[in-house]
C-alpha cells in the first residue's frame, strides 16, 4: 500500500476506467498489473483502482475492438498477456478525451462561477 492516507483517495467515476486504460496503452503495450500500477502512479496515487475491476474493463475493450492482446513474456521471464491499443481504440481515445475535457470544463464553470 502507498504512504497516502486512504481518505485522500478518490474512487473512479463509472466509465472513466476505460478511458484511463486506453490512455495508458497509448504509451505502448502492457500487461494487466502494469496498467493498474501506471494509473495509480501517474495520478500520484490519488485514483484508487480496485485492481479486480481492471479485468472486466479490459475484456469489455477487447470485445469492442479498441484493444487487442497477445501472449508474451515480461521481465523476469514470466508468461503474461500484453494488451495493445488498436487504431480503432486510438480514435476512441481521442473522442473520449475531448468529451472528458468538455465535461470537466462545464462542471468547473458551475462549481466556481465567480472565477
Amino acid at each position, binding site marked *: *500500500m502507498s504512504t497516502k492516507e486512504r481518505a485522500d483517495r478518490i474512487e473512479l467515476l463509472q466509465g472513466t476506467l476505460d478511458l484511463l486504460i486506453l490512455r495508458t496503452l497509448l504509451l505502448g503495450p502492457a*500487461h494487466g*498489473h502494469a496498467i493498474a*500500477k501506471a494509473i495509480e502512479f501517474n495520478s500520484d496515487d490519488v485514483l484508487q483502482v*480496485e*485492481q*479486480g*475491476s481492471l479485468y472486466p474493463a479490459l*475484456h469489455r475493450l477487447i*470485445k469492442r475492438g479498441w484493444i487487442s492482446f497477445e501472449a508474451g513474456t515480461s521481465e523476469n521471464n514470466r508468461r503474461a498477456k500484453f494488451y495493445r491499443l488498436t487504431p480503432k481504440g486510438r480514435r476512441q481515445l481521442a473522442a473520449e478525451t475531448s468529451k472528458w475535457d468538455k465535461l470537466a470544463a462545464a462542471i468547473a464553470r458551475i462549481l466556481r462561477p465567480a472565477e
Partner: protein
Amino acid sequence: MRRRKRMMEDLDRDIRDHIDRETEDNIARGMTPEEARYAAFRKFGNVTRMKEETREVWSFVWLEQLLQDIRLGFRMLRKSPGFTAVATLALGIGANTAIFSVINGVLLSPLPYKNPKQLVVVKENDSLPDVMDIQTQVRAFSQGGGINVEPMDYTGATEPVQVRVGLINAGFLETLSVQPMLGRIISPGEDVQGGPCLAMVSNDLSTEQNNVPTRDGAKTCL
C-alpha cells in the same frame, strides 16, 4: 461461444499472475510474505464478483453478432431496392419452375409406354419364378412381366466391369411395348428353364465397350 470460453480460461491465469506481481511489489516494500499476499488480495477486490462481471461481458456475444449480421443484411437490401425486387422475382420464378418440373414429370405427363393408364407396378422381393406364377394365376391383368435388378460382372471387355443387370422374362418388354434399336426382344418360350441365354445391352454399354458381341442374335443391342 468458443471465444467466451477461451477468454474465461485465460482469466484465471491472469488473476494469479496479477496477485503474484502485487505480492512481490509488497515484499519489495518491506512487508512479510504473508502480509504481502493478504494485501495483494485485498487490493484486488472480490475475485468471484470480478469473474462474474467479466463473464457477463462475453455472455451474449454470439447473439449480438447474429443481430449485427441480420441488420447488415437488411441494410444492404434497403440500399438496393431494385436488386431486392429482381432477386425476389427471380427466386419466386425459380421456385415455381422447379415445382412445376417435378409435378409435370411425376404427375402430369403420361408414361412413355403403351396404355400407361393401365400399368400397375407390384414390388416384392421375390424370385422371377414367383413373378411368373403371379402372372399366370392373377386374372386381373391382360399382360405382365417381371424384372429383377442386381449388379453383375461383365468380363467380355479388357477389364471386368460391374454392370446393373435386369433379369427379365418375356412378358416384361412386351407389356411395356419397348423395341430394341437392333435385334429383337425375348419371345415367349425362350424364358423357360433350359432356354437359350439371351441378353440385351444398353446403348451406353455398347458404345463404351465397343467390342460387345452381337453375333447370332444371342446378344442383342438395345
